[in-house]
């Protein structure tokens, strides 16, 4: 066998084994060592990362992609389901990035959760999640993808509800599961359609045989699935609620890996989407709406984790817009760069929260730049990368997206919304940095604030390095599949940058107004709309169930109890018969007069009848 493919296959199987080994050792009844989490789990992930670099370098050097089909799972006469792993350029690049980010997050989590009595279980959950995610991205057939999909959904539920004594955490976990389930309906619809029409769940066969079909229905199903998993507008409330989980969970699941699963699904299915203009337009408009709506919601939030969560949602909307532009590779590039700086933003927030004794309100922070310089610097780097500052990681993915949007002959409304959302990104990023790092402290000085522990600082530093150079590294080593439009008017080329700088200037001006009162009464309506998340959760979570319950009550009470049972059924029998019975009983009292009178009357009538 050719050495390259042998090395590729071996290293990829090794990654799976390395990740699965710690989980399998937990099946034995012997208790784990106290530092099992740190030594076994983190070491496994670190080792898996270094092993995954091998296929990455092979790919970058030779362009080697591999598809491994290893096991006939369920084979009927007409339908085969196999265990099939696909290591094309998407999964080869994503797996090392996911492992790198997870390695940093696990090291951080060992510090963050060190006082938790069930830390080993926490790390086990994170590892199981990682395995499910890797299964998802390396799946070559829909069945395996579905296994990974559901796996990440379940682990998300378990991890969001980690502090299950807190009612809000349970509600948030339930919300995540229910919204994901609604999206899963779309995925199962698509899978069923493909099984019945394309006769296979293997992606290669699907792409070849789908050319003659009208694919609108399965693509709609896939878009609904992506809406659920990647928190697009309509199924988005679970993502900010998911911040009830510990910060490592937010950093891993709800910024870099799980929420991009929906976008990743659409990227995998891009050969099917690219010929369907309806699906593309839907993605474009849905993504644009999502990115603007969530950016608006992020403007007035006061919880630092919620701001970062909405920022994630906004970037996911941007990825959806990219898919709507028929640029799956750009979307994937944005997934990769976004993983770095978003995870870093979450880790910085976690470090600040822990230093301030679990204070999450940015109105009660301030002046952290003097107290935790490394963390606040990395916060700034992450925010700059997020807004697309030239030559940081976010620039290499965000700017081409905006350029592609500008030079395409598509929806101008989507373009406007996306540009507006880009400026809002700058605004809320500045808001975070201003309230957290700048100014004077607004908290009590109870806890010792330091950055002496390397387990905090090293992951953040590693991710900062990634945030700076990842964009450059990936774009210079990966061949684009579609030629981007390079020449455009200068204003169009600088559109993203201009809009961001404008947003930044507006935000700076607004920030300087925080200690002045120029208006006598504030305009509350826009603030309330943004702060209450557009009133979407209260309406959907309270109003529609209430309508359902009222409908149920009306049916049970008025339809069944009052109508069927009283007016039309048994009681009606009673109420219509009793007057008849009463009248008859009254007539038949046993009085002779009645009978004699009737006799006479009958006699008269008979006589009249006979004579006429």
């Amino acid at each position, binding site marked *: 066998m050719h050495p390259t493919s042998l090395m590729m296959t071996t290293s990829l199987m090794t990654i799976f084994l390395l990740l699965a080994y710690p989980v399998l050792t937990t099946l034995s009844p012997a208790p784990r060592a106290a530092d099992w989490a740190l030594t076994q789990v983190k070491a496994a992930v670190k080792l898996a990362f270094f092993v995954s670099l091998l296929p990455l370098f092979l790919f970058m050097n030779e362009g080697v992609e591999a598809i491994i089909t290893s096991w006939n799972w369920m084979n009927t006469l007409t339908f085969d389901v196999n265990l099939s792993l696909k290591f094309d350029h998407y999964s080869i690049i994503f797996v090392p990035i996911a492992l790198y980010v997870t390695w940093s997050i696990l090291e951080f989590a060992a510090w963050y959760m060190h006082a938790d009595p069930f830390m080993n279980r926490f790390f086990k959950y994170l590892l199981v999640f990682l395995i499910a995610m890797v299964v998802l991205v390396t799946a070559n057939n829909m069945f395996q993808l579905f296994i990974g999909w559901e796996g990440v959904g379940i682990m998300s539920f378990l991890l969001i509800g980690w502090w299950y004594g807190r009612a809000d955490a349970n509600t948030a976990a339930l919300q995540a599961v229910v919204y994901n389930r609604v999206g899963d309906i779309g995925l199962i619809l698509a899978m069923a359609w493909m099984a019945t029409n394309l006769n296979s769940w293997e992606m290669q066969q699907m792409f070849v045989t789908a050319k003659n079909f009208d694919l609108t229905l399965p693509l709609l199903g896939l878009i609904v699935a992506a809406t659920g998993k990647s928190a697009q507008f309509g199924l988005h409330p679970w993502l900010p609620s998911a911040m009830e989980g510990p910060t490592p969970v937010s950093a891993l699941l709800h910024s870099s890996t799980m929420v991009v699963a929906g976008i990743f699904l659409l990227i995998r299915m891009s050969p099917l989407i690219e010929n369907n203009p309806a699906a593309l337009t839907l993605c474009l408009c849905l993504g644009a709406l999502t990115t603007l709506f969530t950016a608006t919601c992020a403007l007035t939030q006061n919880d630092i984790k919620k701001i970062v969560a909405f920022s994630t949602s906004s970037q996911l909307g941007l990825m959806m817009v990219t898919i709507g532009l028929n640029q799956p590779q750009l979307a994937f590039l944005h997934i990769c760069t976004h993983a770095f700086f978003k995870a870093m933003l979450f880790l910085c927030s976690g470090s600040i929260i822990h230093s301030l004794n679990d204070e999450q309100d940015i109105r009660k922070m301030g002046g952290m730049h003097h107290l935790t310089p490394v963390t606040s610097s990395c916060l700034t780097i992450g925010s700059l990368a997020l807004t697309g500052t030239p030559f940081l990681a976010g620039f290499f993915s965000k700017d081409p997206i905006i350029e592609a949007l500008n030079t395409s002959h598509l929806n101008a409304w989507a373009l406007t919304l996306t540009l507006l959302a880009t400026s809002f990104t700058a605004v809320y990023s500045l808001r975070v940095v201003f309230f957290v790092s700048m100014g004077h402290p607004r908290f009590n000085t109870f806890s010792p604030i330091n950055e002496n522990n390397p387990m905090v600082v090293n992951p953040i530093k590693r991710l900062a390095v990634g945030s700076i150079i990842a964009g450059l590294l990936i774009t210079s080593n990966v061949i684009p599949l579609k030629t981007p439009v390079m020449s455009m008017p200068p204003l169009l080329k600088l559109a993203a940058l201009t809009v961001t700088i404008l947003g930044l200037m507006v935000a700076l001006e607004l920030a300087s107004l925080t200690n002045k009162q120029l208006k006598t009464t504030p305009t509350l309506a826009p603030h309330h709309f943004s702060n209450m998340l557009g009133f979407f959760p209260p309406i959907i979570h309270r109003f529609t169930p209430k309508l359902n319950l009222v409908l149920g009550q009306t049916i049970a009470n008025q339809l069944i109890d009052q109508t069927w049972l009283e007016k039309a059924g048994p009681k009606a029998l009673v109420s219509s018969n009793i007057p008849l019975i009463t009248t008859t009983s009254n007539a038949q*009292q*046993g*009085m*002779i*007069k009645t009978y*004699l*009178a009737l*006799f*006479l009357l009958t006699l008269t009538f008979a006589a009249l009848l006979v004579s006429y």
Partner: protein
Amino acid sequence: MTPMHFTFSAAFLLGLAGLAFHRTHLLSALLCLEGMMLSLFLALSLWTLEFSSINFFTSPLLLLAFSACEASAGLALLVATARTHGSDHLKNLSLLQC
């Protein structure tokens, strides 16, 4: 029909109506019954005279005798009713009890 015919038929029917639509007293019902008997006596007599049939010359007297028995039976019932129910109000005579 002839006026004579009409007279006793009308008397009979009026007596019957009076019996059927009685109001308060049993005695008035019995009186109506007597009236009916009287009209029947009249009818029987006139019938015999009209058709000159010797055979039925005695029937009116027979009817009279039987009507007297029946009247006395009725009056005995009236007295019994007055004894058990206190009066002869017909509205008390609805239950089959003494």
